[in-house]
């Protein structure tokens, strides 16, 4: 295991120098007129293209780099999304496991952050955002080792945000998505197996899916790609992030089997306070996730910010109220689950729906995932330890679907570019198609990868190791001393 990673690392560092960076000589262009200069500045405020950004532009721009307001926002958003994983998930997931496994959750999140960054640098960003190769996978050679990804904007994705910032922002998504899977398989999967599984999963599931949905020439990028074969929309990751991780989590936890003593031993969360703190951090960080997905501090971001707040708050209230009604007490885990569920369900919708839509989503998010966790899971007896499936798969699926119904061009005029004809009509069918593909890809790929990893290095620790706890077994440390 160790050797594998180390040689990979060395190989990759070595190769990074070799990729050619052919500089294209730009044709000489005229200086902008005063009118064009003012128009470019207005373009900055309005987050639209400079004159010079047009493919056939004949003038230069005096403000050809990134714009401060947008760039500042995007950097902060990237930091906020990182905050969701480190330390958001440490606390949210760490609080929900038993004391003896708390550090293993930390290690899994932390380890994925490092490993995925290295993959992202070497080829991940290329596979997702490198255009010009295929609707299902990006072009490796375009941005391998992040060559050419500098402080200038890549106008395929943003007029006013530096591409290096954009690439780091998107990296944070690539980190948190597999980290969500950790929730389902907590307390019983070897650290080495988690790393190996995710390394493969990123390549087979995440990179293709993210390219298809968000790549400028992606097959399911309904908003920006006029030639998309499936005209679906996903503002901040209902399919790419939550459905992919959630459905994969279910399959992986089934293949892995339940924790030793599942159903008999008391496996109550060891730190509900920690979990609640993590929830607060997730919520705050999620503003980076959702509003930041506008890739500009514009009106769309403002709308996403607002709908995110409303959906999260409403769901965080509805879930425990339903519990109060049904189980007799509103639990803190109910508040936390509701907030996260609200955030998950609004994710694909936040930049496309209005406030009424957000309230509806909040109410649904407080009820549907609750039913999945409280009734479906005990019924089917799978051991989704921290409810990745119940919250992320169910919530993401719900969100992707309702986005098809509630999206409105009133809050996001980009929806009229390529989707005028189906918006408010058959958009939901496109959503269903994208959801289907996401589920099939996640389920099948996860099963194959899981069995491969199982065969090669094994998935679970020894019984004794699991009984003692993964903290000591895998990391030789304990979460709390004295």
């Amino acid at each position, binding site marked *: 295991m160790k050797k594998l990673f180390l040689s990979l690392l060395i190989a990759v560092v070595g190769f990074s120098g070799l990729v050619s960076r052919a500089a294209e000589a730009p044709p000489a262009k005229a200086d902008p007129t005063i009118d064009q200069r003012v128009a470019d500045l207005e373009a900055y405020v309005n987050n639209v293209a400079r004159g010079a950004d047009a493919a056939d532009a004949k003038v230069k721009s005096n403000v050809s780099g990134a714009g401060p307001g947008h760039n500042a926002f995007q950097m902060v958003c990237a930091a906020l999304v990182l905050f969701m994983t480190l330390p958001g998930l440490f606390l949210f997931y760490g609080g929900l496991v038993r004391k003896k496994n708390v550090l293993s959750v930390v290690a899994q999140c932390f380890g994925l952050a490092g490993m995925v960054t290295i993959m992202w640098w070497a080829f991940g960003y290329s596979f997702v955002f490198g255009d010009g190769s295929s609707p299902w996978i990006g072009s490796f050679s375009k941005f391998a080792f992040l060559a050419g990804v500098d402080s200038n904007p890549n106008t395929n994705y943003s007029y006013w945000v530096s591409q290096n910032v954009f690439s780091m922002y998107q990296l944070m998504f690539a980190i948190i998505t597999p980290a969500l899977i950790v929730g389902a398989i907590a307390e019983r999967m070897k650290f080495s197996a988690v790393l190996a599984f995710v390394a493969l999963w990123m390549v087979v599931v995440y990179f293709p899916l993210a390219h298809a949905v968000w790549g400028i020439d992606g097959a399911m990028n309904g908003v920006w790609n006029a030639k998309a074969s499936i005209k679906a929309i996903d503002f901040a990751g209902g399919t790419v992030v939550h459905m992919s991780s959630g459905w994969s989590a279910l399959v992986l936890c089934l293949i892995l089997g339940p924790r030793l003593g599942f159903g008999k031993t008391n496996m109550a969360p060891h730190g509900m306070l920690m979990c609640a703190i993590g929830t607060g951090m997730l919520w705050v960080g999620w503003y980076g996730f959702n509003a930041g997905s506008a890739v500009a501090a514009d009106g769309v971001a403002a709308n996403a910010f607002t709908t995110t707040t409303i959906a999260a708050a409403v769901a965080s209230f509805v879930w425990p109220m339903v519990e109060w009604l049904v189980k007799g007490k509103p639990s803190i885990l109910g508040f936390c*689950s509701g907030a996260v569920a609200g955030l998950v369900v609004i994710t694909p919708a936040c930049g496309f729906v209005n406030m009424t839509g957000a309230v509806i989503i909040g109410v649904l998010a407080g009820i549907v995932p609750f039913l999945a966790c409280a009734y479906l899971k*005990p019924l089917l007896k799978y051991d989704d330890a921290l409810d990745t499936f119940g919250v992320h798969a169910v919530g993401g699926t719900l969100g992707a679907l309702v986005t098809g119904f509630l999206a409105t061009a009133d809050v996001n005029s980009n929806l009229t570019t390529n989707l005028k004809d189906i918006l408010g009509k058959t958009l939901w069918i496109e959503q269903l198609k994208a959801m289907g593909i996401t589920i099939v890809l996640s389920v099948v790929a996860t099963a194959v990868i899981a069995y491969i990893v199982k065969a090669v290095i094994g998935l679970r620790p020894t019984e004794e190791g699991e009984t003692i706890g993964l903290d000591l077994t895998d990391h030789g440390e304990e979460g709390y001393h004295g």
Partner: protein
Amino acid sequence: MKKIEAIIKPFKLEEVKDALHDVGVEGMTVSEVKGFGRQKGHTEIYRGSEYTVDFLPKIKLELVLADSKVQEAVGAIIKAAKTGKIGDGKIFISPIEEAIRIRTEEKGEQAV
């Protein structure tokens, strides 16, 4: 000498300590324990998972004292710890053959 072990409800600790102090008990050792008995625990529900916690938090008091003082100490504990509700706890008395104060190496009843 005897050892008195008393299992009591946690929120009664201060009162029991004071009551013992009043009858001249100057030392004791206390630990946090979990009790299982007639008193029923509670059920916690975490999303779909239910866990019954039937071990309840209790306090165990241990005091070693001269035979002559046992009666009084037991009385003091009962008086202070009793609420009349199930789960009030127990008192156990057992023999101690020797006691030593580490600091002075005194032995026997002087040591306690």
